[in-house]
């Protein structure tokens, strides 16, 4: 059994004051300075620790308040109110919701999984990943790791092609060659960002993080500069330009290379592998209605790893796009049907925003996934996309310290890892590899609604 995978976490403080859902609206005129709110009512010392962030004119009262309402309810002059913070609502967009963003901030800051008291407080279900639930097991023997530390659950997955049967020579000798396989301890690679503020520091943060976690970060061919070379064993070089421009020595240090689909990717794959047979080559496909067939065709031709990407909202291309989880299910089942599923690795990406999405996409058939925006959010990004429009970043991401950034990324990944363990543990599954495609151990909103509610109101 390999050594237990553990990600070191630490409290890595924010550089900016967080934007929170509600704020305290307190009128100071008329305040009796009874300090009841300060001394007695606030068990979190929010008032005592109050300060003003000059850069953003933000009051720490807002971000530190835990919403117990005692000050509101006990102020003798009724001077304290709470109000929704419109800036919170303005965070992100319909998909990258304020709840998701602030959840990611918490995890990146603390490395802890979000735990709370009282029951679930969110919507009953929702679109995309919110329309499915994972299973649990009442009494069969599950394995648990994480907080209880009892048994080992592996989250390791392999990237590469597998031979389905060992070919034996006439003398019984093994003649089939095992293709190269790269193991990552967490089913996550870091993808290129759809957008980000300029500056190398963000990329450096990713690389530091990938190296520390034992995984990979995708870097465009054009972005391979001297600073990146140091990290080559943890870089997936994305060859989106002229392959001839790549220096040969890169192939000896790199372990994975990604190429876009289109033209003849298999030929390119073979060309790279002829330079370094230990290379794993990954083909990047934009998800769409034709992906199942295309995936099968590529695998049949010898593709090792398919990176199936949706857009930042998890949507494939096309006029009536499917959500990544639906198309992934379809690709997976199609490959199962064709009997080739286990030959290649499927990596899904696009719209992965929470730890649960990781588990759910694996259940829907991915071996691993690629993430992008959450890594930026870990560094306090507000998903405002101002940088895209050439406006200064409100949290000055361009000036981020790569070390700080990588610690935040490590924290986030540690929290995701722990949450994956929670899901696996509850299901009684010992390995992330075995979670893949376990659709029977999930519950889908559409099925349940049809089964349970559509019959309501019918007599008999």
């Amino acid at each position, binding site marked *: 059994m390999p050594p237990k995978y553990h990600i070191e976490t630490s409290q890595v403080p924010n550089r900016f004051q967080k934007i929170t859902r509600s*704020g305290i*609206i307190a*009128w100071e*005129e008329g305040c009796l300075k009874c300090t009841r709110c300060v001394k007695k009512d606030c068990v979190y010392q929010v008032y005592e620790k109050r300060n*003003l962030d*000059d850069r*953003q*004119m933000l*009051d720490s009262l807002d971000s530190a308040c835990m919403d117990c309402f005692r000050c509101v309810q006990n102020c003798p002059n009724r001077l304290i*109110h709470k*109000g*929704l*913070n*419109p*800036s919170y609502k*303005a965070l992100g967009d319909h998909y990258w919701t304020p709840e998701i963003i602030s959840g990611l901030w918490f995890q990146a800051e603390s490395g802890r999984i979000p735990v709370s008291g009282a029951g679930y407080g969110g919507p009953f279900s929702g679109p995309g990943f919110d329309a499915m639930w994972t299973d649990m097991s009442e009494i069969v023997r599950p394995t648990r790791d994480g907080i209880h530390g009892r048994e080992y659950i592996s989250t390791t997955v392999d990237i590469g092609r597998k031979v389905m049967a060992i070919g034996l020579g006439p003398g019984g000798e093994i003649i089939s060659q095992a293709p190269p396989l790269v193991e990552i301890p967490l089913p996550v690679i870091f993808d290129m960002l759809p957008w980000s503020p300029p500056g190398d520091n963000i990329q450096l943060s990713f690389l530091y993080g990938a190296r520390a976690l034992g995984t990979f970060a995708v870097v465009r061919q054009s972005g391979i500069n001297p600073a990146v070379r140091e990290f080559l064993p943890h870089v997936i070089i994305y060859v989106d330009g002229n392959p001839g421009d790549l220096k040969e020595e890169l192939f000896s240090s790199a372990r994975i290379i990604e190429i876009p689909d289109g033209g003849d990717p298999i030929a390119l794959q073979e060309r790279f592998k002829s330079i370094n047979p230990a290379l794993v080559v990954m083909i990047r496909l934009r998800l769409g209605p034709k992906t199942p067939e295309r995936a099968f065709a590529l695998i049949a031709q010898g593709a090792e790893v398919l990176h199936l990407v949706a857009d930042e909202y998890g949507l494939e291309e096309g006029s009536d796009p499917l959500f990544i989880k639906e198309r992934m299910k379809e690709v997976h089942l199609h490959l199962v049907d064709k009997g080739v599923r286990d030959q290649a690795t499927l990596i899904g990406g696009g719209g992965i925003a929470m730890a649960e999405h990781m588990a759910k996409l694996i259940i829907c058939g991915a071996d691993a996934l690629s993430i992008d925006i959450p890594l930026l959010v870990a560094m306090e990004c507000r998903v*405002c996309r*101002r940088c895209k*429009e*050439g*406006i*200064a970043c409100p949290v000055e991401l361009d000036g981020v310290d790569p070390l700080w950034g990588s610690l935040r990324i490590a924290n986030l990944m540690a929290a995701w890892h722990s949450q994956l363990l929670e899901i696996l543990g509850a299901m009684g599954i010992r390995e992330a590899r075995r979670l893949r495609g376990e659709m029977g151990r999930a519950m889908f909103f559409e099925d349940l609604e049809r089964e349970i509610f559509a019959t309501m109101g019918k007599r008999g």
Partner: protein
Amino acid sequence: MDQKTAGLNITIFFCQQLDIDQDKNRRTLEKELGSQIRFFPLPCSGRIDPLHLLRALESGADMVYLIACPEGACRYREGNLRARKRVGYAQKLIEEIGLEGARIELITGTAATPATIDTIARELLMRDATVGISPVRSKG
């Protein structure tokens, strides 16, 4: 843009209730003017503190505006009334150190013509400048 207040650093505090899409609406202006314009959204103009106004001047603003909801339209009923008094207090204080009180100004929207934050800001930029570059900035 062809603003009359060219060269001046403008800081705008504003009540977000005025413009639900403020975050999007102010972007073009921010892009055009860069660091010359800074927006600070507030959940209510009553959240303004004289300290905010002073700190804005101290950190290099030449003009500080607070845009509040029209009277009677404050969601907290009295937030904008309180804002008015606080602006007055801050003006008096800066006048005592020889800075023009006019560098801080309260702008009250009118209920009849709800405007986006960028149109209000543009109007302010098009006004004849009553003050020049702040001595805090130029001599500091």
